[in-house]
């Protein structure tokens, strides 16, 4: 009987996910009336709750751990509260972005509960903190307008924090990523990346002359070099691409973007020579089976999981994703693909793309140059991070050790991404209230 539920649920969850994903793009494609859009978003929310219920039903039946029921109900409460507050207080917010955020967090919690109950609980607590922050941010963005004037403060705080990590951070898997404050381990680079986007936006939203560009570049180089000094090369890559995109959007000069990639190629070549753990990761990427006993172990286990799971997955709690080292963090995508199926995993990528599209869409509509740049920067950070983590897990690119936003375990990563989504929602709401357009009407209702 349990087997039956597990196997049917496997297909049901894929089916729900497929409809959800379809609707993400369906809404984009056609100019629907506001009511029709709202209806689609409402269906999406229903799909999330069905998916959530089905997954926890399977988790409960396969573990027979009654605590999971209580845990499920707490999550249900959090998600419902979050959606409710957003819909009551921020009528002009983006429903799609909100739905996607809830879905991704929901998938993250499902997988973490399956992998490590303790970590899932911790993640849930961080989620509550993140929700509170994400709910406050739109208000702050609306009331305060000093963010564009703090440019140099961003630089000092950002580089300073990264410097602290480089000097006294804790080393894990060859890179210094975190510092410990009062027993809580924090990854400052997760938060500094938001500050970084604000910094570049602050530098370039008014003037884009050569002098301004040079100053911005030198200062950005310090950010990146601090990460290189911590051997956080995935992070360094993330910051560098964000820098390139923002420079390009600010100056409208494509050759900065293209030239930057040339620079990147040279830097990665030097990097692979200079840092032994980069060399080994590249080796593990080229032929993981040949070095399965050491450097290639993680990628091999990940691919074994994905391949063995196949298109429809093995079913929740039916695989062995724990074979993959740090599966809860950098390799959670492999666990999802193994147990929930590659079709589900592909849908997950599409949902991430939908998030990126939505943020870019919002960025495009913004009138304020400063926030326009901020939004582009955050969109790039998000997209690049998704690309680096999933690409690494499926061996499309060498693994760089970054997390899958909102899904992977890790408080810093989770809260920082929730801040990003909060900022974007804030900007969307802010634009709507200043414009008095279609969203403006809603504002008057508010």
């Amino acid at each position: 009987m349990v087997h039956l539920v597990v196997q049917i649920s496997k297909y049901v969850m894929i089916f729900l996910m497929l409809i959800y994903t379809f609707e993400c793009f369906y809404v984009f494609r056609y100019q629907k009336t506001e009511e029709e859009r709202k209806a689609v978003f409402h269906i999406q929310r229903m799909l999330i709750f069905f998916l959530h219920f089905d997954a926890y039903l399977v988790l409960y039946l396969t573990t027979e751990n009654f605590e999971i029921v209580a845990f499920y109900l707490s999550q249900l409460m959090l998600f419902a509260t979050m959606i409710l507050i957003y819909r009551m207080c921020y009528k002009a917010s983006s429903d799609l972005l909100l739905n996607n955020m809830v879905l991704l967090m929901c998938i993250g919690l499902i997988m973490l509960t399956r992998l490590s109950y303790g970590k899932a609980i911790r993640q849930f607590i961080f989620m509550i903190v993140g929700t509170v922050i994400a709910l406050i941010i739109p208000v702050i963005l609306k009331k305060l307008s000093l963010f564009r004037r703090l440019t140099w403060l961003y630089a000092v705080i950002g580089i300073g924090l990264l410097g602290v990590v480089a000097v006294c951070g804790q080393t894990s898997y060859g890179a210094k990523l975190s510092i410990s404050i009062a027993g809580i381990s924090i990854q400052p680079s997760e938060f500094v990346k938001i500050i970084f986007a604000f910094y570049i936006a602050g530098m370039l939203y008014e003037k884009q002359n050569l002098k301004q560009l040079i100053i911005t570049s030198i200062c950005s180089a310090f950010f990146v070099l601090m990460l290189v000094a911590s051997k956080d090369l995935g992070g360094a890559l993330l910051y560098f691409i964000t820098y390139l995109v923002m420079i390009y959007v600010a100056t409208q000069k494509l050759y900065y973007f293209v030239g930057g990639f040339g620079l990147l190629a040279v830097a990665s070549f030097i990097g692979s020579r200079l840092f032994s753990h980069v060399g080994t990761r590249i080796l593990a990427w080229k032929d993981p089976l040949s070095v399965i006993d050491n450097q290639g172990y993680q990628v091999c286990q990940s691919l074994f999981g994905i391949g063995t799971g196949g298109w429809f997955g093995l079913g929740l709690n039916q695989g062995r994703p724990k074979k993959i080292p740090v599966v809860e963090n950098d390799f959670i995508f492999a666990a999802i693909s193994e147990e929930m199926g590659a079709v589900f995993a592909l849908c997950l990528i599409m949902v991430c793309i939908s998030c990126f599209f939505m943020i870019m869409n919002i960025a495009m509509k913004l009138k304020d140059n400063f926030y326009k740049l901020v939004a582009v920067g955050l969109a790039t950070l998000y997209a690049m991070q998704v690309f680096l983590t999933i690409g690494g897990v499926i061996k499309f690119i060498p693994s760089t050790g970054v997390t899958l936003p909102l899904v992977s375990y890790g408080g810093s990563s989770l809260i920082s991404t929730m801040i990003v989504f909060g900022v974007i929602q804030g900007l969307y709401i802010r634009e709507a209230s200043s414009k008095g357009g279609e969203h403006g009407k809603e504002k008057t209702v508010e």
Partner: protein
Amino acid sequence: MEKKKQSNKNREFTVITYFFLFLFLAMMGYFVFFLTLKSESFINSPYNSLQDLFSEHVIRGEIRSADGHVLAKTEVEEDGTENRIYPYGRTFAHVVGFSTNGKAGLEKQANFQLLRSHAFFLEQIVNDVKGEKSIGDHVITTLDFDMQSIAYDALSDYDGAVIVMEPSTGKILCMVSKPTFNPNTIDQDWEDIISGESSVLFNRATQGQYTPGSVFKIFTTLEYYRENKNTYNNYFFDCKGKFNFENKTIHCASNQSHGEEDLMDSFANSCNSSYANLALEIDQDALQELCNSLLFNMDLPIAFESGKSKVNVSNDMGYAAIMETGIGQGNTLVSPLHMVMLAGAIDNDGVLMRPYLIEHTENYNGVLVSENESIEYGTMFSPDEVELLRTYMSAVVEEGTAQKLSGQSYTAYGKTGTAQVSDTTGQENSWFVGFASKEGYEDIAIAVVVEDFSSKSITGVTVAKKIFDSYFTGGVY
């Protein structure tokens, strides 16, 4: 003006959006590519511990010989207990292997194929939902049932190994290792097998490490030929039954005097004295390089487990060691598999095909799932070297140590060997490495080792002859 700037500015957004869309689509494309084309071979790796999960949902498939005999099958009892049956027990014990108490042989190599079901997918979903097991895929091997049986009988009670390969494709036609075990009762016998003295589980055909004895003279000859391409025909030696240099004496077999010999005579007679003399003339470092290029001291390019052949010579070595290595004694060790590969390469105009055991896999309804194709490993010998070795190996049959193979309906080529296992026991192993051809038949290459062949009624040559006789009188393949 303002409007124009705005639309212009949005062009960058389009570029960035498409840039990332492209990255994502490429990544998703790779993901789909991996799942449809690459994952199958990747997850077949024996390192993939997830494979065993499949036994919960799939009944292990059958292993069959090329001609359709079932070599391993799973029978399900009323209560769902599954028993793995090996109808031909000991005959195929090592090559087919076993799947309980660890795994070995094809049961290990093809574990995942056997545990995958490519039954019609709707049927699988129905089975999945009903909680019933699907039937796993069948693995069809390259093994020739008759040849395996003949090789098994030919070795009689002797320990040793026989391996036969089709040089033009790399298909392994038979693989026998003795002593053997009964895979049907391996669970009950496990304690005895583990505590027993002779390592019965060990596949001597692939993992055995034997002193090559005179078989090694193939390589000594080749090195001499490479160094003296124009003058090798002028080589001359007068054999008095033994050869002495710097207080080291090398004896010919039974101290037989071979008299006046050129290089071909020395090879055909397998004259130790002549080869000890010859070994002193060649560059040992170059010999080491030659051996390395012929897959010594490395893992063989195959999908199943094998032992590394070892040779270690250098110009700094003492004369005694140089002479001993030259005639195949000393510290040199080779596996029968390695030797059959090289014999096959000589037969196949110098080109080595990668040996393989799995012809194809099919689902339980006989629909093809995946097929193995012959893969060329590389050219091991140049055309003139092939010509030389064929002539010399023919001389061994026509006028040398393997004359039992002459005057048959087929043409045989080979090199015999009598290898001293150690100085103290006096145990000697009999080798035959060679190949044979006949109009209308695919050529076959063979390597035989008969351990401690005290009676001399069964030798490498007699075993090879039984296999050749049967193969070349059978139906056209």
